[in-house]
């Protein structure tokens, strides 16, 4: 009981440290902001043209342009949420690194709190802080979709909420493991920059996987972060594509949208512009299994690191 109260106090302290550091908070929002700027200036028109290209190739004429605006917006939002789940977690976990750098950790090591409680507090605080930021972005995104074109159902929102919970868990564990080996400002900056710039590409958040060469696509499909994007794309886009189907979009066009924009993920195979030939389509439940399985492996690794570090403390 006493240890739980200590854990609660540490979690509260870690979260406060993150949100009170305005620079850190700003840096952690850079990736979603870059994506937003890219979308407004460039990506929106590119994807609208791609959607229209699919419609044209299957002879479909859209009568409600708001659905198309909403579909592009939902694609963007799924990218932002999936990437932010990792990049925000990396920045938020900087509290742990700065505690090591500034020797603040010593102020806790001299207290009767257990080393494992301290490590777990960083993990929980990072999860909660990242969740708060990602959910805030989600709410802003939903308001945007409500303005440009709304097709989501309550079930979709609940599914996306579950996706966010899983993705943030993945991001928190990943950042916890990476940053447990960092104890300098230089190392932290390097990791933040690397993750912010690279993660979006290697999980297929910036560009649909169908646009990648087959080998690269297979490689990206081997990375668990891809499935965080995959489940979000599926849950964001399916209702929009259903609406388009209601408006007369042929099955081939429906498949083209879902396959071409990663709402359906394929392992292997070739994309011909409208659908995949060969390869295996990965069902949504399998994406969850892969993502949560990766979380389980990362969790085991995190616990092992915590135990070894506590034993090895000089």
């Amino acid at each position, binding site marked *: 009981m*006493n240890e739980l*109260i*200590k854990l*609660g*106090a*540490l979690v*509260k*302290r870690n979260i*406060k*440290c993150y949100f*009170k*550091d305005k620079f850190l908070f700003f840096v952690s929002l850079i990736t979603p902001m870059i994506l937003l700027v890219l979308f407004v200036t460039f990506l929106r028109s590119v994807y609208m043209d791609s959607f229209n290209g699919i419609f044209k190739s299957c002879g479909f004429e859209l009568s409600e342009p708001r659905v198309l605006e909403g579909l592009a917006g939902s694609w963007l939002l799924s990218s932002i949420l999936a990437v932010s789940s990792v990049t925000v977690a990396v920045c938020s976990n900087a509290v742990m690194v700065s505690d090591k750098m*500034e*020797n*603040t950790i*010593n*102020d*806790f*090591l*001299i*207290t*009767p*709190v*257990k080393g494992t409680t301290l490590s777990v507090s960083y993990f929980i605080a990072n999860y909660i802080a990242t969740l708060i930021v990602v959910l805030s972005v989600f709410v802003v995104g939903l308001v945007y979709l409500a303005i440009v074109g709304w097709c989501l159902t309550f079930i979709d929102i609940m599914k996306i909420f579950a996706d966010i919970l899983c993705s943030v868990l993945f991001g928190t564990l990943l950042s916890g493991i990476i940053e447990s080996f960092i104890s300098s400002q230089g190392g932290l900056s390097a990791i933040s920059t690397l993750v912010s710039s690279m993660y979006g590409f290697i999980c297929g958040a910036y560009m649909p996987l169908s646009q990648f060469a087959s080998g690269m696509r297979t490689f990206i499909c081997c990375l668990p972060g891809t499935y965080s994007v995959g489940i979000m794309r599926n849950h964001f886009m399916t209702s929009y594509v259903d609406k388009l189907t209601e408006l007369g979009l042929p099955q081939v066009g429906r498949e083209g949208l879902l396959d071409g924009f990663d709402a359906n993920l394929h392992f292997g195979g070739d994309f011909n512009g409208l659908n995949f030939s060969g390869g295996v389509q990965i069902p949504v439940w399998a994406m969850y299994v892969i993502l949560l399985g990766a979380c389980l492996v990362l969790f085991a690794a995190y616990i092992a690191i915590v135990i070894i570090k506590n034993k090895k*403390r*000089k």
Partner: protein
Amino acid sequence: MVIEIEKLCKSFKDVKAVDDLSFSVREGELFAFLGVNGAGKSTTINIISGILKRDGGIVKVCGEDIDEHPEKIKGKVGVVFQNSVLDKRLSALDNLKSRAAMYGIYGSEFNERLSELDRLLDLKEILVRPLIKLSGGQKRRIDIARALINSPQLLILDEPTTGLDPKTRQTVWAVIEKYRKERGLTVLLTTHYMEESAVADYVLIIDGGKKAAEGTPHDLKNKYAIDFIRFYDKLDEAERLFGSMAYKLNRERDFLEVEIKGTDEIAKLICKNPQIFSDFEVLKGNMDKVFLKITGKNIMEV
């Protein structure tokens, strides 16, 4: 004994930071731990406070072995670190709350403890302000409040006044002395200021991780420091007299310093040569000289 250390050893790779160090600290004592940077003071303190593990030796704090009951010991120890390790962006109150919770102090117990510390350190006005916006002296008051939050039996002060202005140093010491007198607190101090070590009950000097000397400041000064007579009048006569007796002299523009081995000798010299002792003062050897004599190093320069 509040601290009992026997044959303590700690190495970092090939460097022996602490080498076969033994000492003990009595209850209620102000114990000064002196050494140049890298002498092994902080390493020893970090071992006592549970931050570092040792390679060998026995460490007992408040009668308990640090290996057997680390949590119990940590509850009885408070530390003021050389540099503040509190959260700069959080308010002083948030800092104290989060640290108090680590000792199981929260709710009404915390409020009671806080008012007690407020009476001692006058914290009210600075509690809600972020640490980053406090002056050096105000931050130090919060550091001390944090170290005393668990009502420790042993307070470890690692160079607590380094970098502070003289007035703030005085305030810090007034608070610590007041608390010591009220609670019978044992204090283990490391400092670069020799005047602070001079008021300690007991002094341990370490050099290269090893014990170099120990004793009360009075004993150490008598054993290692040289006293001086400083003449401000009749300088030429005094210089001739003491020069002829092969005393070590130091002539400056307006005074002459004569090195004397002890106060007994001064009394004899005054009786024998009263004519030259018209304007003079006797300067007792200070802790700086003790430290220099023992280690061959000037503590402020290393």
